[in-house]
């Protein structure tokens, strides 16, 4: 079950290959359009893969998961614009701060189970959004603008966009490797036990409060980095964009569509969903229907295919489980 060494597992190599494919594809013919498309896809993958740690492993639905993305963005943009920090340092420091905040919030809300926890995560998101909208050092409801010279240390705007892209792809790869590492570790086993039956897991000795707090905090880090990179790239951040519940929901749709609880599922689901969404958005008539499509898709999955794409693949080709976790 866990015998082959870590990097001997096929899934691990698939992750590395996918990451390299993302990195090199737009380099072919300097394809900026493809890069932008893949950048957005990478962000969806990052959000869904980290969200899966909570939903798929521990069995806790984090409706307001976008709060990590938004806060990471705010910390980074603020550190860059007000204190002149370099991008990578600001992103990492911001993400660390977000993880600490997640730990603090988690101490409170992780005592709640099931639906109560899920609803309280919305509260956390809305609460943070309202706070930020009234917080003058962070621009209040107007937000923060980054001047164009913020991109100078990265070699100017054009080069900066490429650097940010590669950084995001790296974060994507890290997210998948993190998910894989956790899934195949003792921590992951404990989390899965919690997801199956938290009380039984506790009786078996799984230290449930510690594990839940840890995974909640860890699941905040990489999305916060992604938020930092994304909003730096946009050179602008404001509360409604940073803490967008629709985006948060789309991450959930990605997880469920791809197959919660698997390593690759959420990434696959997020990618498929993002492609679907961008196709529909270009057709004018559908632009208002984003929520409707997301909702209808989620409903169909929950009602008829709760295992998602991976669940279907695993049932059709049971041997694939070893390769596609």
């Amino acid at each position, binding site marked *: *079950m*866990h*015998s082959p060494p870590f990097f001997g597992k096929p899934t691990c190599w698939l992750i590395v290959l996918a990451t390299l494919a993302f990195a090199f594809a737009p380099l072919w013919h300097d394809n900026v359009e493809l890069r932008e498309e893949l950048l957005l896809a990478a962000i969806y993958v990052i959000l869904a893969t980290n969200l899966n740690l909570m939903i798929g492993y521990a069995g806790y639905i984090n409706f307001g998961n976008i709060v990590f993305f938004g806060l990471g963005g705010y910390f980074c943009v603020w550190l860059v614009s007000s204190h002149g920090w370099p991008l990578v340092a600001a992103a990492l420091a911001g993400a660390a701060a977000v993880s600490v905040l997640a730990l603090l919030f988690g101490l409170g809300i992780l005592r709640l189970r099931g639906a109560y926890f899920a609803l309280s995560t919305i509260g956390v998101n809305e609460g943070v959004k309202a706070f930020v909208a009234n917080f003058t050092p962070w621009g209040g409801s107007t937000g923060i603008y980054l001047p164009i010279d913020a991109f100078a240390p990265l070699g100017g705007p054009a080069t900066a966009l490429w650097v940010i892209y590669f950084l995001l792809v790296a974060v994507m790869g890290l997210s998948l490797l993190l998910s894989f590492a956790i899934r195949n*570790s*003792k921590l992951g*086993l*404990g989390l*899965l*036990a919690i997801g*199956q*039956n938290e*009380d*039984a*897991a*506790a*009786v*078996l*000795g*799984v*230290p*449930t*409060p510690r594990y839940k707090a840890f995974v909640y905090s860890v699941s905040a880090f990489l999305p916060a980095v992604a938020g930092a990179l994304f909003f730096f790239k946009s050179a602008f951040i404001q509360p409604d964009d940073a803490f967008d519940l629709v985006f948060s929901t789309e991450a959930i749709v990605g997880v469920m569509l791809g197959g919660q609880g698997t390593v690759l599922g959420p990434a696959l689901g997020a990618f498929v969903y993002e492609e679907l969404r961008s196709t529909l958005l270009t057709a004018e008539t559908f632009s208002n229907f984003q929520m409707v499509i997301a909702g209808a898709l989620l409903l169909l999955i929950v009602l008829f295919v709760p295992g998602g794409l991976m669940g279907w693949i695993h049932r059709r080709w049971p041997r694939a489980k070893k390769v596609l976790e």
Partner: protein
Amino acid sequence: MSALLEVRGLGRRFGGLQAVDALSFAVGEGEILGLIGPNGAGKSTVFNLINGVHLPDSGSVIFRGEDITGEPPYRVARRGLARTHQIVQPLANMSVLENCVVGACFGRENLPLGRAEAVALEIAGFVGLIDRIGDPAGTLTIAGKKRLELARALSARPVLLLLDEVLAGLNPSEVERMIVVIRRIRERGVAILMIEHLMQAIMSLSDRIVVLNSGRKLAEGRPEQVANNPAVIEAYLGNPEDAAKLRGERPS
């Protein structure tokens, strides 16, 4: 024989009902202690008070010389006290082997994954589930799930095992097999505190018996002593079959 587990003056109230009342008893090392009593006597509650699922209102629980009263279940498990449930709680979508690995990983020895898997395999063989280790736990029969519940608890390599009606719902041949397994568990040096309604089984397995009625200890002693105790027989008068079984007679 030193006391492995000591329960002193344990009490717990739920709403208007005193579920457990000033209960004291001890389990010695390597001993099998049976806990019996009519329905609603508070037996499962005693287990819940011991392993931290509920907090006692009064009294204390001493395990291996340390006061563990009110400690959360995962810490109690880590100390070497494992427990099965009356209503089985398999981790349904995980395989039988994975269920046992959870027990081995988070139990007394706190093993890493590799060694835990080895322990789990051995225990799965011991209880007779080796041919089902890859199957999801939810697909087992009730007897299989009971055996899994036991295997999971054993995988934690406990010093004391709490068995809650592990024979309930099994047919006679399954009961026989389970009794053999329980005897072999004791041979490995694990002490057992068991709740059971199957009179013949618990009478033949136990070294000593504690009888509970309405949350209070009614009697304590060797099986023959308890079976002939008039107060105990009276408590079971509501169930003449059990009363007859107590005395070793064949039920009418």
